[in-house]
């Protein structure tokens, strides 16, 4: 079993190395703008546009267009869309040829190998698949076998007292994460085979993806804070690389930079927190830290907890560091599904859950976590209401749902938070991959105002996305219902009534914006270009299959793990991890503090369940009324808001409550102003002092140069005078 645990992260690392070293040789991709092909290559840049006029030119340029509709659908969802994409803003899935760069792959297409070939996915995906199988073994061993595994590979750093092992630990918390990361990771890999087809950086994509899997697995398997930190930074790097995957697109490069910089702010806090732990306790191993954390005084513990939470806020995109996640949607959609929905952004939740003994020691830190969580939940949901980009809706929804988890962590509902993490990982991964399928089918159109009526053309995408949306909206039997209602019930039982009310409102908003997206995308009439509509088709099997597979846990995870509420299977599994933090965050006078004996269907519990489900149903009903029955209703509603605030509120929501603009003004403009001020200081004061000294020296030298007459007798006279002066001085001083 030890070997399996080591292999879980090692296999993706091997896949990464393989993809980097061998991958470029395995793909033969179209070379656009190649010197020899000249004009023909540009014609072919439309990815085998089926137009007859292009036919010959394409043949000559070295690779044939895909002949039939079926095969086109099966092998190349991009076919024929390049022209549309070049115009559409934020095109995703297919990249205009001038942006499509395989990093020096020119020359791989030779005269005798005209057909593009993509083989670099085989080994990376295979290794991730193997890693998934091992993960499932380990998961079963931990969860069903009740084991806990520790593997120490070797001593990584041994410097005086500072001793860090490369060691892995798998307890039930790690096992839950392992389940999500490995499963969604594998499915995203499979999905990417279809999605990234015809992208010239094919092998590069799989290399990054595998590196990410390695980093993420390292993060969750690590046995100490430093190893966690290494994984933490590595996933950040992978996130940067993958957001900026189409690095020739300025918006993508900018988004990558933004994600990296914003994450650094949080990571800096995390790093300080780790250092503070070491300084105070002299160890970084989880077990030892948690055993000794009680010996520290309250202020230090609070500071450590808040610093760790700063890292979580950055990585999990909570207010005020949430701004990077929506922009990160510039990356390819599989990346959004894997990193920015299902796995990496959960790292913050994992960190707080893992460090639960630290947080449990500090009520102040718990309040901060819960407060940030509740505020971000409603804040992000309020932005998602009006977003028009399908991926942005999902991105803000992710921020909001992650905030839900933090809210749960902050009130001490540890298990509920992890439960929501697991179910959210599945259904949000599903929704993102579904949105990628939609974008693919609609030739890169991401704006839901210009989509519509796609359910006839994309049946499986539609079905699976509705399943995912029902889960997100919290409709009974779907996974999201159980996990979300558990959080709400815990909030109520533990006495956080205000938080509970906000949570219910957020649930309503979530259902509304989710189904607004669904109705605008799949129902009604097509509102985009007519030529695009003709080309809408179901995506390739490698893309649809992961959707269908993910729909299964989206439906079943809640039923299997969450029944009965507040006492389901997952509680039994995770009990041990959170054993000594169970009482944290319970307000005095609440149900949990008194006589709360778990869930009763015909009691408070059943009532709460009903309220949660009704909030979701009401949201869906409102979305149906507004976006299917009566599309004019939202406008009328905006007009009816008193004092004419409607349009302003709408504009504020569309513009993300101007957080980006404020940051732009304060940090970007402020930074420029500060830099200008410093520049002025440098140019005028520092350089002024240096130049001033030089100026004085020059002036003095100017006076002295008169002496340099070039006449020997003058010099001689000078020497003689000097001699006389010395003599006189000697005579004057000596007596």
């Amino acid at each position: 079993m030890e070997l399996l645990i080591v292999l879980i992260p090692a296999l993706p690392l091997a896949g990464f190395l393989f993809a980097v070293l061998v991958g470029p040789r395995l793909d033969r991709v179209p070379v656009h703008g190649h010197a020899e092909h000249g004009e023909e290559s540009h014609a072919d840049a439309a990815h085998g546009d089926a137009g007859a006029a292009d036919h010959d030119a394409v043949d000559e340029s070295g690779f044939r267009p895909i002949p039939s509709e079926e095969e086109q659908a099966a092998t190349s969802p991009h076919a024929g869309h390049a022209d549309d994409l070049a115009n559409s803003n934020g095109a995703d899935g297919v990249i205009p040829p001038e942006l499509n760069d395989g990093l020096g792959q020119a020359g791989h297409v030779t005269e005798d190998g005209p057909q593009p070939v993509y083989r670099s996915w085989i080994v990376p995906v295979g290794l991730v698949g193997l890693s998934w199988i091992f993960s499932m073994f380990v998961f079963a061993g931990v969860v069903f076998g009740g084991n806990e595994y520790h593997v120490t590979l070797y001593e990584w750093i041994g410097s005086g007292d500072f001793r860090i092992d490369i060691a892995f630990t798998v307890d039930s918390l790690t096992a839950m994460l392992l389940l999500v990361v490995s499963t969604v990771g594998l499915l995203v890999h499979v999905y990417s085979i279809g999605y990234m087809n015809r992208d010239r950086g094919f092998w590069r994509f799989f290399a990054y993806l595998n590196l990410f899997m390695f980093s993420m697995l390292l993060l969750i398997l690590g046995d100490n804070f430093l190893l966690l930190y290494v994984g933490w930074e590595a996933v950040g790097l992978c996130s940067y690389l993958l957001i900026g995957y189409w690095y020739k697109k300025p918006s993508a490069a900018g988004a990558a930079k933004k994600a990296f910089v914003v994450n650094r702010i949080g990571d800096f806090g995390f790093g300080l927190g780790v250092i503070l732990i070491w300084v105070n306790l002299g160890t970084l191993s989880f077990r030892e830290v948690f055993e000794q954390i009680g010996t520290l005084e309250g202020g230090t513990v609070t500071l450590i907890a808040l610093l760790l939470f700063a890292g979580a806020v950055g990585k999990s995109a909570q207010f005020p560091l949430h701004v990077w996640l929506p922009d990160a949607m510039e990356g390819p959609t599989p990346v959004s599904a894997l990193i920015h929905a299902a796995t990496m952004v959960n790292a913050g939740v994992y960190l707080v859950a893992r460090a639960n003994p630290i947080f449990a020691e500090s009520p102040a830190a718990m309040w901060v976590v819960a407060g940030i969580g509740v505020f971000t939940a409603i804040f992000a949901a309020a932005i998602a209401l009006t977003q028009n980009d399908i991926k942005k809706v999902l991105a803000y929804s992710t921020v909001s749902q992650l905030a839900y988890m933090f809210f749960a962590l902050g009130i001490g509902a540890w298990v509920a938070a992890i439960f929501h993490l697991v179910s959210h990982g599945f259904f949000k991964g599903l929704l993102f991959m579904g949105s990628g399928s939609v974008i693919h089918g609609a030739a890169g159109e991401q704006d839901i105002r210009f989509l519509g009526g796609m359910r006839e053309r994309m049946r499986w995408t539609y079905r699976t996305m509705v399943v995912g949306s029902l889960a997100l909206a919290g409709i009974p039997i779907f996974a999201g219902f159980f996990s979300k209602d558990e959080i709400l019930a815990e909030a109520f039982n533990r006495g956080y009534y205000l938080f509970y009310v906000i949570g219910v409102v957020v649930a309503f908003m979530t259902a509304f914006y989710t189904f607004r997206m669904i109705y605008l995308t799949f129902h009604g009439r097509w509102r985009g270009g007519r030529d695009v509509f003709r080309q809408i088709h179901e995506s390739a099997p490698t893309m649809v299959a992961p959707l269908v597979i993910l729909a299964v846990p989206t439906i079943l995870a809640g039923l299997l793990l969450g029944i009965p509420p507040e006492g389901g299977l997952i509680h039994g599994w995770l009990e041990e991890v959170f054993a000594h933090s169970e009482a944290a965050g319970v307000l005095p006078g609440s149900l949990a503090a008194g006589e709360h004996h778990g869930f009763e269907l015909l009691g408070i519990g059943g009532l709460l369940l009903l309220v949660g489900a009704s909030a979701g149903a009401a949201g869906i009903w409102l979305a149906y009324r507004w976006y299917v029955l009566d599309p004019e209703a939202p406008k009328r509603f905006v007009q009816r808001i008193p004092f004419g605030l409607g349009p302003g509120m709408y504009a504020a929501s569309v513009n993300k409550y101007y957080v980006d603009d404020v940051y732009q003004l304060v940090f970007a403009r402020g930074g420029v102003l500060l830099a200008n001020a410093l520049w002025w200081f440098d140019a005028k004061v520092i350089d002024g002092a240096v130049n001033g000294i030089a100026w004085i020296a020059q002036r003095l030298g100017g006076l002295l140069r008169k002496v340099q007459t070039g006449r020997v007798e003058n010099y001689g006279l000078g020497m003689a005078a000097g001699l006389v002066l010395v003599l006189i001085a000697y005579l004057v001083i000596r007596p």
Partner: protein
Amino acid sequence: MGLASYLIVSTLLFGIGAFGFLARRNAILMLISIELMLNSVNLSLVAFNAYIPEAQNAGALFALLVMAVAAAEATVGLALVIAIIRTRQTAEVDAYSDLKE
């Protein structure tokens, strides 16, 4: 006759040399004036050597050293001066003012 008279002669020689060096415009004569000053110093050195036994011939040794230096200086100096005279066709130092500021 005593140490004083040697020193007076030496001082006179030094003064003549210094004056010659400052007043003359001919490069060769200026070199000769320098030699005069060096020799005046030599004279005072050997005079001190003769009148102060505790010096243990240090004065004479110094005089020898000065003579060696003077010989070297005269050689180099003369060579330079002759080279300049050849190129400039004049021994007047006023003409050698190219290195003024």
